[in-house]
């Protein structure tokens, strides 16, 4: 097994980020939007530990506030996609037959979908807002989880405990949600943790294209994109948001990895 300190470091960082995500927008939004025209594009110093941006706003405050948007996008969209994915995958794997074909067909359709367009359409019609991005990402990334759950349920439903439950007269829902899904939850959880990291990277990518969280609300993605415009003149504007994204994604991956390793161990025994 890998050394334990990586796991605890990752967990510690994620806890800190989660705290920043909740407290940041509440405590630091003033500092994040205060413009100091005397100190535009200032390098890191005592008063501004991470430097300032092109409007003189403190980068540290903006990164802390940005955590809220980025983590929010990551966690909530994953929650949505997990929820939908588990439901669809469970139904598909358990019932099989035409229901399976229809649901997987739907999954295939959505896989080929122009997510970019959907985001454009939703943003323009319903107005701007991080929520619309979240919902769209959530509703277009459940397919992987669904397939995973479906495969698990397929193999699990013929196992002894399931057969026993059926013999005892348990109803479908009870078998599904009482027994099968919890046993399949290991890989799903791993997927969820990894999904958060993917969602954060996705938000950064969307911001690059101008479709992520809209300024002046900071998010790590749009901070990075703004920093790109000043590349060469203000390295801190590109470096620190990138480090924030990278560390969080890395931490999530380490935790996900550890989860997967320990689950794999369990399943071999079970």
């Amino acid at each position: 097994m890998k050394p334990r300190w990586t796991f605890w470091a990752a967990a510690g960082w994620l806890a800190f980020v989660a705290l920043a995500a909740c407290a940041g927008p509440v405590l630091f939004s003033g500092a994040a939007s205060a413009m100091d025209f005397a100190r535009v594009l200032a390098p890191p110093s005592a008063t501004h530990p991470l430097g300032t941006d092109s409007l003189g706003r403190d980068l540290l405050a903006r990164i802390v506030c940005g955590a809220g948007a980025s983590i929010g996008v990551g966690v909530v969209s994953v929650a949505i996609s997990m929820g939908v994915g588990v439901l669809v995958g469970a139904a598909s794997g358990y019932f099989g037959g035409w229901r399976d074909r229809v649901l997987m067909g739907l999954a295939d359709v959505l896989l080929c979908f122009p997510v970019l367009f959907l985001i454009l359409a939703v943003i323009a019609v319903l107005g701007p807002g991080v929520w619309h991005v979240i919902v769209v990402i959530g509703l277009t990334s459940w397919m992987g989880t669904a397939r995973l759950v479906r495969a698990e349920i397929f193999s699990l439903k013929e196992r002894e405990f399931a057969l026993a439950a059926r013999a005892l007269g348990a109803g479908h829902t009870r078998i599904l949600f009482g027994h099968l899904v919890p046993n399949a939850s290991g890989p799903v959880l791993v997927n969820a943790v990894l999904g958060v990291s993917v969602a954060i990277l996705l938000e950064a990518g969307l911001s690059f294209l101008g479709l992520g969280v809209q300024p002046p609300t900071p998010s790590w993605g749009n901070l990075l994109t703004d920093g790109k415009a000043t590349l060469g003149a203000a390295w801190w504007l590109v470096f620190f948001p990138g480090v924030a994204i990278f560390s969080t994604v890395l931490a999530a991956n380490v935790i996900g990895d550890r989860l997967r390793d320990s689950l794999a161990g369990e399943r071999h025994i079970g």
Partner: protein
Amino acid sequence: MGRYLARRIAGAVPLLFGITFLSFAVIHLAPGGPVEAKAGLNPKMTAQAREKLATLYGLDKPLVERYRAWLGRAVRLDFGESFADGEKVSVKIGRAVPVTLLVSGLSLVLVLLVGIPLGVYSAVRAGTRADSLVSGIVLFGFSAPTFWIALGLMSFFGVTLQWLPVTGLHSLFHEEMAPLERAVDLAWHLVLPVAVSAFAGLAAVTRFMRGSMLEALSQNYVRAARAKGLSEPRVLYRHALRNALLPVVTLVGLSVPGLLGGSVIFESIFSIPGMGSLFYASVFSRDYPVIMGILVLGAVLTLVGNLLADLAYAAVDPRIRLE
């Protein structure tokens, strides 16, 4: 097996209909339009000119009729002409595909060449600091935003050291170079994009290989081989590796259809005129024929990929029955 295949292919047809109709609808109902994209805020553009353009693009007809017209041509593999410059959509896509394939293909080869040995090494040295180091490096590539890494490397290798060209796939006037010079020029330009792309994809293969190898190494036959007194390298490569390689190769094989996707961010940063750039440009200028062409291509590839995935899972795991 044959029946299963036939059923899947038959089932794919209505699926394609569904995908194309849904995409068509969403695209055309999304706000903005090709006329506005062309007209911009040009005060000289008269209302009549706009109407003319709208008629030309068929925007005055109802959605279902437009879809039927498009479908009629699409089944004959005629995807129409681009709104932007009138060029045939198939020509446009045909020009972008080799570019994207070249970069993604080379990147995949590099990922395999580096990832598989790294994965084996990590598995053999599991738990040690070497293992963590490899994991760390590989995860870095996966966790950092691609354009961040790309810009950093371009700045360093392109500007500071001036070892590598910064953008594009060719130097200027490369047609005038001798074939050998041209090949070298292309190779030189490919170094950064392929390296960045591979770095990002390394994590998946390395970790999967590691996991697969670890699983193989814990199997009984490995213990038996060791008990028989076979040398360690022989145990590793003749026995464990061959079995561990199968799932990895399957995974890689399944990602081949996705090679054609092309990342718009990646291509935008490197100025590579591939599928990603084409899709992005056509989305923002509402070039509907090109968008539909790319989507159909993507849909077909995804369906093929799914079929291969299902076949592969069934082959590998006997518990899954193909119905």
